[in-house]
């Protein structure tokens, strides 16, 4: 059994890659990817599809509880409500690869469209005859490529670029970032750096040198840092603040390790579209759903207490809260995916939605902070009523007068 297979051939002088404009990375209902030219195992084929869904092999959380990549493909496609999977320029892809792909999609509502280059459709139809492909005319394509920018964040941050943000002294930070980063990434760094620099300079001018104490600095900077979503942004904000203090004749030492540890304690109160999208990197449904619940406002204990019945009830009517806490629309695909994966274990309705020891939730959140560069982690260590207040240790900032 296989998914419906459609073949469409690009006109002469039009590359088949143009069909990629039908996919939209903001909306995974239609995804496109370029299959390889070599034979791959079923797991390799699955990895290609998962990669098109934003799953990254570079983050942890791979294939737990026996869900391998092959079984995860229909789960994630269904969870994201993907209706079309476009394989671009598959003319040199082995037919076994395409056969495995079609079989893999059979358990999902997705249709497989093979968009080949001009002159290859006939061979493709012959090679894939057992799949009964349907040949359709080349579709009308939008003239513009879909935008991948997030709507609700002023400076769009690409979490995949986080490891190239230079970790250098504040005096050389901006120049090094300009030197090392691609222009688009640098623009995002520049925007945040400039914003924090201006605000810190203003604060320093307003309070005057006689009132700049370590306690006042800590209070002011905690407020600034609490706005940041990722550790990269915290890093950039810290460098900008140090630059501002230097400009006013202060040397501000920041213990990054202490700062980071404190930041881990509480979830960011700024959850942007980028935060939700970054969860796509997880293949493992349990970890993705845990982070999604957490970002929706559930405490770790609430996540532990969720049952399969709770998830199923929410799935039946997503407008209703999940155990009293509403689920953000962006969180829905991750919870759906986990429900589908969990159902494959044939649990009873009272079984926990997330299997594993109590500390699993904490470990997952801490790991997600690391994997995705997000400020989430050991929130459970503090009672719920202390949420929303970042903890910045008293020894994080040290001031020395330079003049």
């Amino acid at each position: 059994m296989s998914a419906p297979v459609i073949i469409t051939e690009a006109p002469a002088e039009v590359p088949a890659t143009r069909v990629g404009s039908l996919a939209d990375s903001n909306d995974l209902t239609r995804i496109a990817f370029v299959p390889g030219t070599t034979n791959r195992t079923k797991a390799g084929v699955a990895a290609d599809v998962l990669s098109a869904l934003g799953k990254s092999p570079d983050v942890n959380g791979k294939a737990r509880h026996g869900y391998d990549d092959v079984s995860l493909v229909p789960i994630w496609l269904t969870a994201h409500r993907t209706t079309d999977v476009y394989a671009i320029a598959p003319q040199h892809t082995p037919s076994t690869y395409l056969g495995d792909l079609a079989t893999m999609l059979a358990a999902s509502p997705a249709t497989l469209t093979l968009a080949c280059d001009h002159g290859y459709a006939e061979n493709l139809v012959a090679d894939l005859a057992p799949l009964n492909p349907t040949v359709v005319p080349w579709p009308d394509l939008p003239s513009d490529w879909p935008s991948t920018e997030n709507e609700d964040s002023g400076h769009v941050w690409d979490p995949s670029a986080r490891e190239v943000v230079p970790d250098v002294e504040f005096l050389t930070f901006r120049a090094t970032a300009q030197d090392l980063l691609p222009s688009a990434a640098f623009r995002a760094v520049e925007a945040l750096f400039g914003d924090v620099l201006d605000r810190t300079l203003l604060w320093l001018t307003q309070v005057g040198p006689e009132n700049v104490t370590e306690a006042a600095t800590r209070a002011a900077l905690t407020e600034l840092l609490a706005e940041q979503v990722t550790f990269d942004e915290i890093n950039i904000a810290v460098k900008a603040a140090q630059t501002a203090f230097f400009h006013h004749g202060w040397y501000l030492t920041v213990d990054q390790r202490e700062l980071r540890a404190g930041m881990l304690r509480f979830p960011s109160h700024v959850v942007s579209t980028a935060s939700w999208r970054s969860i796509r990197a997880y293949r493992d449904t349990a970890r993705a759903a845990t982070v999604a619940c957490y970002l929706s406002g559930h405490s770790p204990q609430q996540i532990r207490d969720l049952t399969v019945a709770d998830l199923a009830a929410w799935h039946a009517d997503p407008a209703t809260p999940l155990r009293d806490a509403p689920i953000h629309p962006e969180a829905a695909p991750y919870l759906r995916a986990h429900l589908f994966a969990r159902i494959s274990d044939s649990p009873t309705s009272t079984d926990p939605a997330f299997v594993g020891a109590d500390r699993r939730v904490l470990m997952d959140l801490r790991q997600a902070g690391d994997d995705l560069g997000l400020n989430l982690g050991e929130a459970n260590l503090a009672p719920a009523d202390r949420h929303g207040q970042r903890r910045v240790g008293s020894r994080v900032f040290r001031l020395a007068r330079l003049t």
Partner: protein
Amino acid sequence: MTTHASAEEATTTPPGNAPDQALFPESLDVTRLRGYLPPPPPVFAETPFSMLIGTTVQEAVDSGEMAMISGPVGVGKSTAVAQAARDLDKTVVYVLMPDAPSVKASLETIWESMTRTAAASRETQIRRDIENHLLRHQDVALVIDDAHYISTRGLRVLTNLWNSMAALRGQGVPMILVGNDLPTALKGVPEIGSRSVTRRNVGPLAGEALYAFLATIEPRTAETDRDVLVLLDRQHFRGELRKWVQFLNVVRRHQQQPDEAGALEQTEIRQALLRQGWIG
């Protein structure tokens, strides 16, 4: 301009300093430094072909498409492409393909030229690494010299790489393929045609364009009898600019006075041809 420093710059010893063992460890083979554009010639002379190539390179970079520049050995394709690349507001990665590489070796060469770090051990991983690198560095343009050495399967992988970029970001990675007789080499991958903004065939330079080129790199040729130049070209160089440049370099190196003027003399010409082994 954001091109990498040339190999010449990277390997030049600072004036007055003897080569330093720490700077030049024995294990470092500077001839294998990858990714850098070849050093510019002392004098670059525009020709109709080089101007055409310059336009082609610019068009490929602007559109994010492939470009093919094909022509026989020694007509100045690589020099013209490198010259055009130096003027681009792009990070240009120069990839010199080794003779008859496997697909993995082709990908390794591209990776090492882009990052100057060792490639992963598996072909699929190298391909993924290249894709990720190109996604993060969207201002990269690839100049692939001696592209005729790439196998048909290698070209398919290269096209696949371009496809991945085009599918992910709406624009492919600019790839300028330079080589001898490329149309034949590309027969197995006809779809490259739909991804190429331009295809240029350049041939040996002849006539007034050749003499203008010669006059730019060696003003004495302008004063030399045209029949002598015609004969030299017909018998020895056949419009190959590389051979002409080599010949004129030998003449210049062995002239009596450093600022010698006037037409090239018969004895000079004969001596230079002898030294190059072009006559017995």
